[in-house]
């Protein structure tokens, strides 16, 4: 069985608060918080790339993993990379000193890091340690013309990382449930230019049902009830959505770690940033169950269950 050995994160220094954003968008400051539960988000500096954020998050992760680790595979999730190809995976691996090993891009948007974790658990026995990195600069597409203030208020920039290996210790990945359905491909998308396009009603309706169903599916595979989970580390899309998922599972909302108020929605990076922050703040005890979940464009969605060894 593969385990998550460490998490890492990097968020840009620049903070864009609701007051400044409201001036840019011509809307009320309070409306932003009311609609999405976000007070501020981080914005990459001029010239700061998806790869820059990814490398910093990966270095943080590798440092936390302790002993020098040489991954055999790098998986990079980004839906907001600067160019169509090559994706950032090869450059990130090379900048980390791992040129030559396979580096694969997963341009899945919000569910990319969840899919990456699940794939890493399967691939670690074959390739050795797998470095999963999710890095996003969503502020650009969020503020692209024609400006949609309902979208522009949601997103921020950042990166997260996780190291998955076969070695004992860390968070043992017990089960995964991954799903995709292209029938909804037009409901949340980013074209070659322009802003993120979103049918919010469809996204919320589908996510409100599919995320709890995926969590219940992955818990059932391990014979676990939602109440037994120590923490749910979910893609930080919308505070109201996370509260809905908690309610659907009949667990207290405080079981869901949340940082969306500070970072906004950083797409695929958000789940790993949340995981890194939670693991810095809390020392998990042996046997603690941690459930990851995500939903995003595609639609792609799912859940991963892990247990502290």
């Amino acid at each position, binding site marked *: 069985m593969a385990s998550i050995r460490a998490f890492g994160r990097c968020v840009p220094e620049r903070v864009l608060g609701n007051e400044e954003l409201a001036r840019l968008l011509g809307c009320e400051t309070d409306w932003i918080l009311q609609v999405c539960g976000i007070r501020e988000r981080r914005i990459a500096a001029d010239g700061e790339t998806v790869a820059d954020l990814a490398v910093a998050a990966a270095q943080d992760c590798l440092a936390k993993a302790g002993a020098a680790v040489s991954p055999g595979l790098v998986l990079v999730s980004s839906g907001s990379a600067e160019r169509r190809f090559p994706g950032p995976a090869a450059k990130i691996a090379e900048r980390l000193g791992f040129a030559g090993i396979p580096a694969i891009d997963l341009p899945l948007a919000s569910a990319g890091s969840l899919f990456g974790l699940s794939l890493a658990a399967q691939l670690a026995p074959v390739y050795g340690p797998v470095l999963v990195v999710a890095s996003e600069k969503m502020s650009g597409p969020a503020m692209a013309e024609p400006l949609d203030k309902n979208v522009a208020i949601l997103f921020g920039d950042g990166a997260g990382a996780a190291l998955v290996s076969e070695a004992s210790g860390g968070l043992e990945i017990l089960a995964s449930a991954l799903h995709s359905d292209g*029938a909804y491909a037009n409901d949340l998308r980013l074209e070659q230019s322009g802003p993120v396009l979103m*049918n*919010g*009603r*469809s*996204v*919320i*309706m*589908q996510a*409100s*049902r*599919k995320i709890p169903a995926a969590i219940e599916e992955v818990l059932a595979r391990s014979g676990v009830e939602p109440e037994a989970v120590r923490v749910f580390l979910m893609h930080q899309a919308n505070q*109201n*959505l996370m509260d*809905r998922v908690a309610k659907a599972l009949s667990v207290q909302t405080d079981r869901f770690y949340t940082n969306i108020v500070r970072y906004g929605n950083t797409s695929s990076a958000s789940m790993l940033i949340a995981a890194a922050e939670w693991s810095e703040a809390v020392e998990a005890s042996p046997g603690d169950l941690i459930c990851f979940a995500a939903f995003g464009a595609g639609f792609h969605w799912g859940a991963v269950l892990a247990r502290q060894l």
Partner: protein
Amino acid sequence: MNKQGKIAEIVRKVSGKSAAPDPEESLFDSGYLDSFALTDMVAELEKDFGIKIPDADLNPRRFDSIARIEVYLDARQTKASAG
């Protein structure tokens, strides 16, 4: 209470509004429903009418007015009884 009356009661419950909407009135445009209230309404419809609404049927336009919801529920219940 007829079917439209039951639907109107559910809409009032999930929207928190005291007045019921007109049958043809857009529940979104008139402020009765937002994305989350829509999700709550679908759960209440399933419970009160004893049906399962599949994810594939969760097109917001189907649920945009009491009249449209009634049409959908009729079709769903007919399908269920035929199956």
